[in-house]
Structures are given as C-alpha cells and as structure tokens.
C-alpha cells in the first residue's frame, strides 16, 4: 500500500512542476499578470520577444539537425562529385533575411513599447515622491486640500484609472523601484530624480521590491502596493493627511521620549525624520518594509529586538521595561 501511495506521489511530480511555474505567473509580484497600461506595454513586448527569439532558436536547431543528417548521407557517397555553391548562397541569403526581419520586428516593438511608457507624460498626473532608504521606502503625497506634502512609508496607494507620476530618489545608495504588476523597474540614484508614470487598470494588492542590491537587508526591502478605485483612494489620502488621534495611556509620552528623535507621529511632539513616519502606522499591512506582518506579536518583537529580526537595520534596540514596551506597542497598534 505504501508503495502504491509513493508511486502516485511520484506520478504527481511532473504535473506539479508546471503547476508551480504557472502559479507564479498569476501572483501579486509578476510581470506576467500586468495590471497597468505601462505593464501591459512591457508584457506585450516580452511576448513578442519570446516569440521572435523562440522562432529563430527553433529554426537554428532545425538547421543544425538537418545539416548533421545530410552530412552523414554525403559521407556515404563518393567524395569526388563537383562542389555546388548555389545552395550555400541561397541559405546564407535566407538566414540574413530572417535575422534582419526578426531584429526589425523587435526594434519596432520596442519603439512602440517606449511610446506607450511615455504616452502619459503630457497628461496632468498626480505626483508621488518615493525615496529609497536602507532599507525602507519613504512615500510622500501632496494633500489635495492644503497642497502640503503628506508622508507615509512602505505602502504605496494608487488610484485606479488615473495616471500617477512617481518621482524616485535615494537617500543613501542606489536602490531600484520595481512593482512587476504595475511598472517596469527603474533605479533610484542618489542626487538624481527619476520619473515613472503609472496608470493602473486593475485594483488589488501587489508587491514591489528593491531590485538593486543595496546592502545586508536588501531582501527585506519590500513595498506593498494597493490599487483602489478613485473614491476609496481619495478617502484614504484624506485620512493619511490627518494628524494622529489623541491617545489614551502612557504610550504617547513614552514614544515621544524614546522614539521621537527618529520617528514622527503628526500631532504629537514626536517629529524625527530619520525613520518612517508612523502617524497612521497600524493602518499598514506590514512592519519594517515587508519584513513582518502587522500583528501585535510582530510589533512587540520588533520593538524589543529589531537587530535580531533585521540585522543591520538603522533601528536600535531601545531599552524599555516590559510594561513600557507594552504601552508603546498598544499606542502604535491604535494609530490608524
């Protein structure tokens, strides 16, 4: 019985591999499941490139097989027959035509994709500033009510169907912004501002990641991306623009004393800019740029020992007594 079960399991393996591969295509971090105009343009280019290069690859392999078989037949015949170059000429011309045609198609496809990526440039777009830090993302929106910049971190919200112009910069080393479902990747270079236009066409959660090695915790530099319909987006932005609600308990004072030099919570004395803005911290999905999920346990662990969870992070272990750490965690968990 055990043997038959094992056989069944072995029989499953060849099916499981393609299933796992195609499963990756539909994910929240995949260029094969495009969700914006720009990602569609890049996706089309990818399909065209795979088709053209695949076709030429097959032709080359077929030619190789054919010539090997033919050489064997030739070897059997007498070697004294006169050499005929006309067939060689014809095949060289044919291969040159195939290569030039393939390259022309690819250049044209790439030209069209470039045009599509730049198509939104002329439109009036909403500006968002994204700044890379070791190892998190500072995200700033312009508050439509006051025109002032509103800061958040590690979670990018985009309105469905509207063009957003993302201005990318870096505060320390070269990072790279890449949300495969929504955008192509573009580097964030210290001293430069790069632009990227995004016009999402499908709502939902997506995942972005830093795509340029940027130090020890490069792998823990992820970005949650939420595409919402414009009404929900406007409501979210209005909520983000507000200051934090007045908190009960000792957490706020403790946070201001121990954490306020680096973190800001608008509406309280905590006004540090070195670390992420935590004004609406608990409304986010994850902690420390996608390192941990937003749960009470993860939050408490992160406050107690950030260096054990993300060695090298700029956040130090702050010496707090257990009751104080608990009060700070309660305070943060209520910042919605």
């Amino acid at each position, binding site marked *: 019985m055990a043997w038959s079960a094992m056989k069944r399991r072995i029989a499953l393996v060849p099916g499981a591999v393609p299933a796992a591969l195609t499963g990756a295509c539909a994910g929240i971090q995949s260029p094969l499941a495009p969700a914006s105009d720009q990602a569609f343009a890049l996706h089309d280019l990818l399909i065209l490139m795979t088709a053209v290069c695949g076709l030429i690859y097959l032709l080359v392999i077929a030619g190789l097989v054919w010539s090997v078989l033919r050489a064997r037949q030739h070897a059997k015949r007498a070697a004294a027959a006169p050499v005929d170059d006309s067939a060689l000429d014809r095949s060289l011309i044919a291969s040159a035509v195939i290569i030039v045609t393939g390259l022309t198609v690819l250049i044209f496809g790439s030209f069209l994709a470039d045009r599509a990526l730049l198509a939104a440039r002329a439109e009036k777009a909403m500006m968002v500033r994204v700044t890379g830090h070791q190892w998190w993302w500072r995200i700033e929106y312009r508050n439509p009510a006051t025109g002032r910049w509103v800061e958040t971190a590690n979670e990018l919200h985009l309105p469905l169907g509207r063009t957003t112009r993302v201005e990318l910069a870096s505060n320390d080393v070269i990072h790279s912004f890449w949300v495969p479902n929504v955008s192509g990747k573009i580097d964030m270079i210290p001293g430069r501002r790069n632009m990227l236009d995004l016009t999402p066409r499908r709502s939902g959660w997506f995942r972005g990641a830093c795509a340029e090695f940027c130090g020890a915790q490069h792998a823990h530099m992820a970005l949650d991306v939420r595409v919402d319909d414009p009404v929900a987006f406007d409501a979210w932005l209005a909520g983000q623009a507000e200051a934090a609600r007045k908190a009960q308990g000792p957490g706020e004072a403790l946070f201001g004393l*121990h954490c306020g030099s680096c973190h800001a919570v608008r509406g309280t004395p905590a006004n540090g800019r070195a670390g992420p803005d935590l004004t609406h911290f608990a409304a986010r999905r994850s902690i420390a740029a996608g390192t941990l999920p937003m749960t009470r346990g993860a939050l408490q662990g992160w406050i107690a020992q950030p260096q054990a969870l993300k060695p090298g992070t700029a956040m130090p*272990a702050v010496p707090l007594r257990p009751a104080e750490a608990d009060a700070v965690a309660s305070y943060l968990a209520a910042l919605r």
Partner: protein
Amino acid sequence: MLIVLALAGCSQEARRLVPGPPQTAPNGNADPRIPAYQENLYQISQGGRYFAWYGCSACHGEDAAGPANLADGDWRHGGGFANVFAVIGERHAGQDYAARTPVEQRWQLTAYVRDLSRHHAEKRRRIMLDQKAEPQGSAWLGPQ
C-alpha cells in the same frame, strides 16, 4: 607603497552584523567591548551622525569654548570610555540622554566624541556636507 597603504585601510570600517549589540553601559574603561567601537571607523561615523541628529552640535559645535569644546583633549570628568559614556547620559541636566538615546547609539557617540581630537577641520567639514542631505527634523525637504 600605495597598495600597502590601501590594504591597511581595508578592515577599518568592517561592519559586523550581530543580533546582540551592547545593551549595557561599559564596565569600566577597560571593557573588552570598547575596541570594537573605538577602533572602528563605521561606528565612529555613526556616532557623528547621531551627534548631529540629537542636536549635540548646538552646544558642542566647532567654535565651542571651555568645557563644551570636545576636540581639545581636555576632559573635566576623565577621558576614559566609561567616563565619557557616563557624562553623556547623566550630566546633561534637562536633556535626559540616558532615556532619549538607545545604549548602542551612546556607545557610538562616545567613540565619536573621543575621536574628535583626531578630526581636522577639513574632515569635519566634509562630514557636515555629507550629512546635509540626511533627514534631520522638519526642515528636511528630501534628498539633495
């Protein structure tokens, strides 16, 4: 000669990623943990960064005179690592740096302050320029 000099600098900034940085004050001026901070340029430059972020340069700036001048090698309460560490946390009335700064940052600040007498004016200016683009308080408007 140049190659030898360059190689000698290789490990000066080596940064060890360990889960347990110091969480207690130094145990006397001969604490075995001190060299990892005092002789490491990465830790010293982190200290310089926090020196600016916590506003130390408001009183201990380049032109500070008397006891506030930290670069003259003259220490009122002793120049040992543990002495300076204790002064940062305990002898700034009204600032309570012992509560405001995490222990590891005070180790880095101490290493930086004790290294200041070796910082010549150009080096200090260069560090200041480097840090100008870093996020410090509400005046910061994004990277330069």
